[in-house]
């Protein structure tokens, strides 16, 4: 059942890429995450579904160490995120890509400088040619090589999202966290982004955690879906099983 087809090995034997156990996070009296649990195996692509304000962004900010959880354990690639500091945290972050909900492109820098930033910051030993090569490769992956000298403000929303995706992919991360990759885009552009994401997933064999409430995205990208309600992992299953679910709180997403 848990057999990886490509290698024939028992997947459960390998340590999970991401393991979240009993995660709690509150802001004052507002309990956002309450005993949240999740495990991701290598190569898996999981969508976390939840309503606006349910704490999806808080969840992935905890995973990358931008927010400190109140309680619980987050293990990423075998490292406990809460205990990692300084150098070791940076090393971990170099292996984890993060696509921000708002893209977070540096608007004082050109597209090229945006892409170079994580490269130069994480691997200071790359030569000029290697950096250029990587930047062009990442831009070609998202089909925007011609924008290399443009400023982010000159790009459309969909192009900005793709540049942000290229900036996330440039480090060839082992785990990618996507925060609502299709929000604010028209359905067609949204589908393009999702297709790009699944292509990259296959090309670099990454593990993905996708936050979304866009059903298109859920349908295409998520072989496995986790529903976040009341700060908990309320349900975990495939698209088909959820479509047939009789649970009222699950059904509201799939109508």
């Amino acid at each position: 059942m848990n057999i990886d087809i490509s290698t024939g090995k028992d997947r459960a034997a390998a340590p999970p890429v991401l393991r979240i156990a009993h995660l709690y996070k509150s802001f004052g009296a507002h309990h956002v995450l309450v005993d949240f649990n999740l495990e991701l195996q290598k190569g898996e692509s999981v969508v976390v579904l939840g309503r606006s304000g349910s704490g999806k962004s808080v969840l992935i900010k905890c995973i990358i160490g931008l927010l400190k959880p109140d309680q619980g354990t987050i293990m990423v690639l075998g490292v406990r995120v809460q205990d990692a500091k300084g150098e070791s945290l940076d090393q971990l972050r170099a292996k984890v890509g993060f696509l921000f909900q708002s893209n977070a492109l540096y608007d004082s820098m050109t597209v090229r400088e945006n892409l170079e930033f994580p490269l130069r910051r994480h691997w200071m030993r790359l030569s000029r040619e290697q950096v250029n090569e990587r930047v062009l490769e990442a831009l070609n992956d998202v089909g925007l090589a011609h924008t290399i000298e443009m400023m982010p403000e000159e790009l459309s929303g969909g192009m900005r999202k793709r540049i942000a995706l290229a900036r996330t992919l440039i480090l060839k991360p082992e785990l990618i966290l996507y925060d609502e990759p299709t929000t604010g885009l028209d359905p067609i552009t949204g589908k393009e982004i999702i297709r790009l994401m699944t292509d990259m997933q296959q090309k670099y064999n990454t593990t993905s955690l996708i936050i979304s409430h866009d059903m298109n995205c859920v349908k295409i990208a998520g072989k496995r879906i986790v529903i976040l309600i009341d700060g908990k992992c309320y349900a975990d299953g495939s698209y088909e099983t959820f479509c047939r679910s009789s649970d009222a709180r699950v059904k509201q997403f799939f109508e």
Partner: protein
Amino acid sequence: MQQETSIKLFLAEAGDLARFSARFFREAFRPPYEVAAFIRQCFVIGYRSLGLVSLTTFIMGLVLTMQLRPSMVAYGVASQIPAIVSIAVVREIGPVITALIFAGKIGSSIGAELGSMKVTEQIDAMEVSGTNPFRYLAVTRILAATLMLPVLVLLGDAIALYGAYLGVNIRGITSFNLFWSQVFDNLSFSDVLPAFIKSYFFGFAVGTVGCYKGYSSRKGTEGVGRSANSAVVVASVVIFIIDLLTVQIAEAIGIN
């Protein structure tokens, strides 16, 4: 009741600002140093305020001289105009006007820039890209502001005095050499030194308040505008407070 909460808010804000400056000292003098970003900020911060500082200090020197002239003539000490003007400019007006202009130009742009970087998650993006954003953004700007303002003050003083020289020559004739020798004969070490030292503190205040306001910016464009605005207001008030404190301290240690 209302007053009580606003006093509390003021104290909370002052506490946060103090904590922010403390963080600067904790982070600034530990490697890795962001040398390239620091040099770029020095250029940006110094160069961008150059024109405005030159213009305002020039006009101020000129106008100050013309305004002083009638009374000086009435007291029969018109020849003392360069001496009086140079003391006023070097000790007080030059540093304070330059610092206020600097607060308006640089404080607001730091507040708006960091504020919009904060609300669009660019600061978070830097952090996950293996960069300490506090060092990369705040420390470099605060250091650059601290080091550049004294340079601008020196320049502003010189330009203001040149304005004064032109002002003297509008009615009456004083040669260039005579004017400057009168200026330098009158200025002593104790006129220049406290003024120079306090402009470091002015620069530090502008940089710190700007970064603090940007960092604590609230979501939305309105939040960014408000941080830019309050960066200027708070920095200007802090400049006057520092001005008051330095004159007291200089008095106390006998270099006033």
